[in-house]
């Protein structure tokens, strides 16, 4: 017990707590916030990991606990693994694609900076989802517009923060940030395409050699 309390009082934890709390600042003052996040070292990877993990749990809770009038998924087919990949995969793809792209367009950010900025940009989504769930239980289907507005707010806020993060992390102008973000989406699509094609080719190749082997076995057996 004392160990835990000591841990909480240590300087390391205090710094971690400060970086977590700093997300509230980036949320409302993104331009200033994302600059300091990277260049003044006011954010930390630990906090970013925290946000990602929180986002995963919040998203699972969001899908399960929201009143069925607004979100209704068949529980027998619900898969947490699917939720995890839905959050983590686009994030890593974005970080990777964006880093690949911005190194060519003299962006200043490292891949860890991009990841950190992305994670900090998810914070409004987390907070709005936490508000959304209890609100959905005191609202009827006909009043669902309120929740729709909340939903669009969270999505819009996220995209806005991503653009701001691009500007500040890579030290870009607004228009350049927009262009690189769009190009990043294209790059992500290309990566997914190559990945799928690679596996299709591999599985076809395996199937080919497997059938050749089978054919050989049949012929040998028949003599």
């Amino acid at each position: 017990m004392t160990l835990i309390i000591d841990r909480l009082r240590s300087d390391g934890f205090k710094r971690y707590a400060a970086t977590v709390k700093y997300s509230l600042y980036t949320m409302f003052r993104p331009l200033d916030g994302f600059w300091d996040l990277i260049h003044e070292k006011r954010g930390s990877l630990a906090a970013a990991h925290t946000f990602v993990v929180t986002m995963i749990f919040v998203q699972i809770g969001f899908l399960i606990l929201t009143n069925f009038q607004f979100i209704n998924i068949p529980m027998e087919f619900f898969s947490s693994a699917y939720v995890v990949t839905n959050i983590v995969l686009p994030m890593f793809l974005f970080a990777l694609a964006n880093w690949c792209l911005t190194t060519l367009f003299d962006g200043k950010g490292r891949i860890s900076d991009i990841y950190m900025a992305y994670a900090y940009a998810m914070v409004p989504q987390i907070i709005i989802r936490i508000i959304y769930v209890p609100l959905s239980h005191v609202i009827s289907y006909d009043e669902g517009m309120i929740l729709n507005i909340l939903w669009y707010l969270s999505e819009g806020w996220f995209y806005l923060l991503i653009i701001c993060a691009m500007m500040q992390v890579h030290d870009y102008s607004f228009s350049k940030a927009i262009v690189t973000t769009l190009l990043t989406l294209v790059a992500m699509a290309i990566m997914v395409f190559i990945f799928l094609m690679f596996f299709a080719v591999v599985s076809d190749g395996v199937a080919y050699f497997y059938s050749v082997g089978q054919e050989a076995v049949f012929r040998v057996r028949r003599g």
Partner: protein
Amino acid sequence: MYKQIICFVLAAIIVMPTVAFASEASKYTYAYNEWGIPIPSPDAYRVSAYIIGQHLQFNGESIGAFRTPQDIHVYENLLYLADSGNNRIIILQFLEDTSFEVVDIKTYAFIDGEPSGFNNPHGIFVSPWQYNKGQIYIADTDNQRVLHLDENWNVINEILHPGIHGISLLDENSDFLPTKLAVDFSGRLFVQTRHVNRGLMEFDRYGVFAGYMGAPPVEVSIVDQFWRLIATPEQRERMLLNVPVEYTNLSIDHEGFIYVTTASENVEPVARLNAMGEDVLIRNGWSHPVGDLDWGMGADRTGPSELAAVTAFENNSFVVFDRKRGRLFAYDQQGQMLYAWGNPGNREGFFTTPAALDSMGYTLFALDAGIGGNAASLTRFDLTEYGALINEALDMYQRGLYEESYDVWNDVLRINGNFGLAYIGIARAMLREGHYREAMHYFRLQNDYRNYGRAFTFYRRIWLEQHFWIFALGLGVLIVVPPVVKKVKKVRKEIAES
């Protein structure tokens, strides 16, 4: 580090379990639940008579097998069967105790006293309306005419190729091949004609062509439009034309609305047309009435259902007949699926080539045209206790007796706990009686969010009224406490200072 994580994530996607469940309903009767999964159900209809031509006697002789019969029509307790391949109309009389006998066989009608034979008649209709009660309409397909007969089979009117009158949109050189027909209460005649895709041909009560009505709407997708835009004129010519599809069958209900079916993928497979030809079918079910939702992988039968016939009951529920898988699908007034039954095959309760469907009260008659002139049959289905209960409850719903239907829905649930509509029926009764909490519970069971929201609004209002004191107290505390705290602080400060 990131490389490893990415590899891990990518690997995770590949290993992720895919959803799999039994796709083919194994039971004879089934229904789709709100997720589109077939759930076995007790039989709602059971075969009470399986009639083939060899079994029927007329004047002491067997009348011989049916040959590709195409249409049936029920008039009071008579059933008119168009035995197309044998160029005859067979009239069966059904008695109270499900027994039946051949009353008459007609192979010709009288034009001015002269007999004129039928040639491959594909459709028959006997008017149930006051205006022309008992008059008979026959689509005499290969003679290229529609016959309008009185009760004694004398021709009142012979409707030929409307192009002859010079007012038709139908090309004069093309054949006039009427197949299915229906007459409404004002004597208007609607004919489905082969190779015509502008909808139904409408004739007025004197047999004069009045135009086309109710062509299924053509939907052009954005992608198609895009390709059409960038295509060269030669390419555009070779593309499939976006034309409306042909109706496969039609049936008129007791209110004079026309139910039509199509076998196409791009339009609603079943529609209810008003006098203007507009589709007024209510589609409030979990999915639109389209037949099978889960297509399965059985043999060469893939893709959506191809509806070949339809009939509607007094309570506005209706049944459609799928010729692809030989199944019947019943839907209620709101377009919610009730039950589906049947399968391909040539034994009792199974079908090879569904051709026509009609109802006598709640008794169904399904006509199977058979394959290559063989195995044609007429099947009579009667409601089981389960089906009768459901239809009783639907009757009550139609008349607005929600509270009274409570007991009936409970009886339905005793037989089949998976029948979703029963929970909604019970919830509706609860809602009417003011048991909002219970109503919410039952609506929740069937994921009926709209009605749940309605019940919830009532429940919330009552809850707020009953717990108003909490809010009053909270407000009071908010008003009273801060000034008091302020005062106390001030006094304390003064004490400390003095």
